[in-house]
């Protein structure tokens, strides 16, 4: 499994905040993605009805997932393909390696796959003298840099054009050193030319899956570049890496969810290429892979069923929650320290690698609720982060300072008159102290808050006072 540094979230986050390149990339992202999504949503009056539908489809699947997986396996087999079940990353890697070695593979091309990241596939193949070649442009760039993706749909979103140009000059030494690479178009063309050859050389093509279809035994990928298609069509074998919860019943169910996927991810009504792959090439076909394999990875997901975290299994990896998250937008994806960043990562990472290995993540939130409000699958991400906080508390993983502070707060909170008095006194004091700027740049005992953002100066009344005023007003009307 990919090594996790999620427990160093604070240090990672500070590094991100101090990195000017990252900050300028994030500034662009924070405007670009949300604007495109909002425009696409405005053009589809049925968007919210489709979100409900998408949620209901996945809920139905999760209640019956064993049956749908078995039906999927049956359909894949009837179409001449193979399904392999893997409990752990180790088992999944071994299955892929066995296929590659049986075919005498020396190089494999790869479409974008978060599961491949999750199981640490590239390093494993390399250690067995098989060269993995990432073909998604963003993934190709970060492979050249030996980095992890910083975003689930835009892996190189943290990089500038100049950094990428420098990487290309370093890696593509067979090309003319004086070539002009100032325009993004020339960088795209250069990568295209290099990867074209790699598609034809590869022995095995590995892709992820956005959906698995029980009705037909198909796997589905959604891309804009077309790399996943050349990856699966040209080599001897197509290997699909998918986690269990990618399954949906029918082509109609996939069609409904596709309507919210592209819009939520990039603001596209449909991504450019949505490809349904079923089995190996058929007799008489002019192209296509000779073998078709699906590796079904569990890695802790089945244990989330029936728990308060089951709903994260509805996630379709659109990235909207991170695109709209103020924490992600401030610190970037690498701060989260493992495969999945942003709000969905803050829930999924502790679920998959253990909360003790990802203690800070459920706290990497301002609980502003934006993630849940944009999630096409209506996943209650803040609620689940709160569940982890509660668990953390019970298991005594919360740092001592925070425990003492919260302990004092709890003591007062249980004594309403006293709490009220203390709160209004404190509010008045803070309001007075902050009256010049309207906010605090530095607040004793809350350094963790004010180091990276301002604490608004209270406007005079406590929440309780406002609440009672409101109640009284209601009573009168």
């Amino acid at each position: 499994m990919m090594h996790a540094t999620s427990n160093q979230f604070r240090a990672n986050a500070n590094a991100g905040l101090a990195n000017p390149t990252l900050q300028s990339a994030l500034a662009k992202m924070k405007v670009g993605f949300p604007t495109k999504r909002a425009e696409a949503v405005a053009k589809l009056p049925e968007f919210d009805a489709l979100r409900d539908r998408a949620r209901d489809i996945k809920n139905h699947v999760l209640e019956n997932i064993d049956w749908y997986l078995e039906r999927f396996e049956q359909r894949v087999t009837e179409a001449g393909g193979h399904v392999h079940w893997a409990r752990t990353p180790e088992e999944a890697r071994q299955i892929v390696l066995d296929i590659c070695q049986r075919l005498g593979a020396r190089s494999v091309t790869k479409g974008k796959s978060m599961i491949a990241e999750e199981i640490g596939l590239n390093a494993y193949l390399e250690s067995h003298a098989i060269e993995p070649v990432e073909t998604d442009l963003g993934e190709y760039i970060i492979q050249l840099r030996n980095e992890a993706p910083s975003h689930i749909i835009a892996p190189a979103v943290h990089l500038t054009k100049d950094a990428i140009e420098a990487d290309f000059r370093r890696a593509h030494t067979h090309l003319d050193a004086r070539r002009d690479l100032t325009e993004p178009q020339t960088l795209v063309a250069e990568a295209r030319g290099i990867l074209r050859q790699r598609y034809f050389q590869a022995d095995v093509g590995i892709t992820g899956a956005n959906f698995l279809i029980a009705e037909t035994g198909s796997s589905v990928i959604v891309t804009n570049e077309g790399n996943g298609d050349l990856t699966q069509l040209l080599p001897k074998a197509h290997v699909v890496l998918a986690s269990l919860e990618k399954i949906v019943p029918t082509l109609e169910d996939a069609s409904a969810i596709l309507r919210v996927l592209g819009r939520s991810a990039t603001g596209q009504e449909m991504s450019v290429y949505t490809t349904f792959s079923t089995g190996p090439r058929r007799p008489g076909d002019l192209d296509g892979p000779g073998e078709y394999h699906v590796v079904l990875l569990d890695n802790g997901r089945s244990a989330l069923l029936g728990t308060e975290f089951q709903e994260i299994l509805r996630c379709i990896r659109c990235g909207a929650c991170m695109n709209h998250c103020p924490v992600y937008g401030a610190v970037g994806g690498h701060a989260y320290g493992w495969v999945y960043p942003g709000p969905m990562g803050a829930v999924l990472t502790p679920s998959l690698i253990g909360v003790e290995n990802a203690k800070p993540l459920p706290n990497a939130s301002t609980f502003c609720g934006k993630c849940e409000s944009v999630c096409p699958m209506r996943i209650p991400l803040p609620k689940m982060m709160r569940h982890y906080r509660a668990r953390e508390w019970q298991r005594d993983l919360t740092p001592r300072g925070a425990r003492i502070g919260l302990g004092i707060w709890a003591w007062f909170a249980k004594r309403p008159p006293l709490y009220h008095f203390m709160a209004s006194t404190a509010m008045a004091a803070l309001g007075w102290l902050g009256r010049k700027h309207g906010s605090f740049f530095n607040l004793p005992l809350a350094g963790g808050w004010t180091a990276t953002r301002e604490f608004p100066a209270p406007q005079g009344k406590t929440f309780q006072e406002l609440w009672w005023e409101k109640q009284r007003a209601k009573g009168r009307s």
Partner: protein
Amino acid sequence: MSDARTQILAGIRASLKRDALPQDRVAALETRLAGRPRGPIPARSAGLDRAGLVDLFDRQARSVACTVTRVATRADVPAALAAYLKSQNLPAEVEMSPDPDLDHIPWSAMPLLRIARGKPSGAEGVGVTSALAAVAETATLMIASGPTSPATMNFLPDTHVVVLPAARVVGPLEDAWDRLRATRDGALVAAAMPRTVNLVTGPSRTGDIEQKIEMGAHGPRRLHVIVVEDDGDV
């Protein structure tokens, strides 16, 4: 790996606090699979006649950087293709799927157009295919692989030209699946489901460098559709 399979299925059932599904639940799931219930279908394509669907397809296609020419009959297709190639400064030379749909077109009307039928050579020229259906809702072309339709033709050429009979333009994606099912006698299982079904919505692009959209990342940098308004019911 059979014990991984057994253990995963057992783990799922333990988490859901039940055994394998009982008969009545299985019957309900079979009914749902066979019934293929649709979700909410966007109203934008509802109630349109053929001309309305083609108009919607045309509009949507332009919004995804695809170009469209509409011709009256299949006899007009060769000249429309030649004119398109000229407008893009491309040589009068194409690779073309050996698709019987394209056999009906009188290509000999353009004797200067060089046509290579078969699978694509890998040279980054112009590839011509047909499409099984086109979804007006999003300007999405459905192209299924088969002995006369190599899927690589949709990806290897630098320019992809699709000849589309107007009768194949449908409203939502769900109608395109029904068209595919109709060509395959119903259920899309085993060999009835083509190895590859490509849904193509515009030309290839990437936003991976500073989120600036660049065309032609790996697949075709241009996608051109020639709609044949009156082509019978092919």
